């Protein structure tokens, strides 16, 4: 067929753009030539808003960034603020935080799996994935009453202690997850349609992935061993025994496998945390109005989507001078064009899904 470049618009109300993302595509017949993501539809000016709030008031707003994994956002901000203010968090609180954020990682990956498979056309996986995720959200609801925007980590520690009865219920949920995963893997792993849509699609090699600043499971699927929990351990992660799963090919299929294995590792970490939960306080004593001496910090954590960083500059008052968020989805989305070039138009949806982006976090 003769060469004919066509411009195509996708979104911002497209069902598989995970929120309000618009893609400007240039295609030659079925082959993608260029992709330009257009973002900002959800821009709420969070960073501006944070400058007008106290350090404590910022925390619930971080829930609204990556709303699929709100506890991870809480932790990212809170750790940076604690480092800036010089607050020592009790060991028990750090371990409870790990229980919470690893459950959150698990829930986030399960949601991703459902969305991703649904984008490609396997709708039953969406239902399985979400049913499994519900059991984890029930735990969050029991812990602090909220399921989505949880606000379950506070400056100084966590809002509530966990008891033996809660631990029993967490274990029961963890015991149930492998069954769901097994069912999903039986549906997908060797499924011919699934493999045709994912194997060798949206490839990015290790060097390009690093150059584009890709982080998280999408980077590790390209074989780069780079996990903040290991590289710069925070919140007692150095006391835990877990592995960082790596892919080889950097394609959509490997990103799928890496995230599935991360679910297993999260289960392992939560079990260890429940087994060895240290005695002590679940929160440090933090003044109601937290005034922070002038200074600046940059702190990163490994969120489910990638490396989440917070830069905070204080000016001696109870409000930050500047808070800048390094959003993993924002930076990961930059590499979309590189991954899509030369692939089929119909694979754009799958590649976008495999990046696991959340627009609330991209647009801030």
């Amino acid at each position, binding site marked *: 067929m003769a060469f004919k470049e066509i411009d195509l618009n996708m979104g911002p109300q497209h069902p598989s753009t995970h929120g309000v993302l618009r893609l400007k595509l240039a295609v030659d017949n079925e082959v993608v030539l260029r992709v330009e993501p257009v973002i*900002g539809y959800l821009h709420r000016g969070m960073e501006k808003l944070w400058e007008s709030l106290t350090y404590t008031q910022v925390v619930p707003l971080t829930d609204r960034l990556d709303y699929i994994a709100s506890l991870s956002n809480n932790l990212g901000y809170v750790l940076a603020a604690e480092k*800036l203010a010089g607050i020592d968090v009790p060991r028990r609180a750090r371990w409870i935080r790990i229980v919470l954020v690893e459950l959150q990682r698990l829930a986030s990956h399960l949601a991703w799996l459902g969305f991703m498979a649904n984008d490609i056309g396997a709708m039953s996986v969406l239902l399985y994935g979400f049913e499994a995720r519900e059991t984890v959200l029930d735990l969050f609801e029991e812990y602090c009453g909220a399921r989505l925007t949880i606000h379950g980590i506070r400056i100084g520690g966590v809002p509530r202690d966990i008891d033996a009865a809660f631990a029993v219920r967490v274990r029961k949920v963890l015991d149930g997850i492998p069954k769901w995963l097994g069912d999903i893997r039986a549906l997908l792993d060797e499924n011919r349609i699934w493999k045709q849509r994912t194997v060798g699609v949206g490839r990015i090699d290790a060097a390009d992935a690093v150059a584009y*600043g890709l982080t998280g499971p999408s980077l590790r699927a390209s074989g*780069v061993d780079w996990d903040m929990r290991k590289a710069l351990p925070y919140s007692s992660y150095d006391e835990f025994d877990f592995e960082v799963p790596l892919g080889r090919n950097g394609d959509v299929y490997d990103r799928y496998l890496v995230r599935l294995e991360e679910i297993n590792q999260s289960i392992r970490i939560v079990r260890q945390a429940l087994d060895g939960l240290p005695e002590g306080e679940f929160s440090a004593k933090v003044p109601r109005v937290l005034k922070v001496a002038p200074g600046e910090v*940059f702190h990163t954590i490994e969120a489910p989507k990638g490396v989440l960083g917070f830069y905070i500059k204080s000016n001696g008052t109870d409000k930050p001078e*500047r808070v800048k968020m390094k959003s993993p989805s924002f930076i990961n989305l*930059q590499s979309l064009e590189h991954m899509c070039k030369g692939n089929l138009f119909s694979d754009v949806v799958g590649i976008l899904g495999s990046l696991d982006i959340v627009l609330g976090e991209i647009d801030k």
Partner: protein
Amino acid sequence: MPDAASDRFEIRQAVDQLSARFPGEVLAVAVEKGETAVHLGKKGLILVLRFLKEELGFNALEDIVVLDNLRTAAEGGPRFTVLYQVGRFPAAVRLRLAVAVGEDEILDSAVPVYRSADWAEREAYDMFGLRFDGHPDLRRIYMPEDFEGHPLRKDFPLQGRDGGV
């Protein structure tokens, strides 16, 4: 936390190499809360970034942060500070480069060295009005094309302006 203590030697080594190579560009070095910040002159920025990446192995530009010093800068002092958070991974060595920029000054773009700087610089342009020479496509990224002003500047009202978006 083993945050800084374990790699302090490597950071100091990198800073020493940087100061030896660019004596005129490194203006000050500050260590605070285990994080090392190197203050640089505006002119040598790209040379320093290239040196860090190609010879010292700093493979990641993690983030670009802009500070508006409207209320804190001395009379006639530079309005903005641009921070480049660079890192060497997986060895986990981190440095922060700080460059002071006046309101009408143009910085060299870091995109030719670190491709990941593309959207970060567009964000800095959109939110603060900073311009980067050599950026492939410097446009607004969050706000609409026809929006006037730069929202994260300290003199931009929190509640927005009448007739704004």
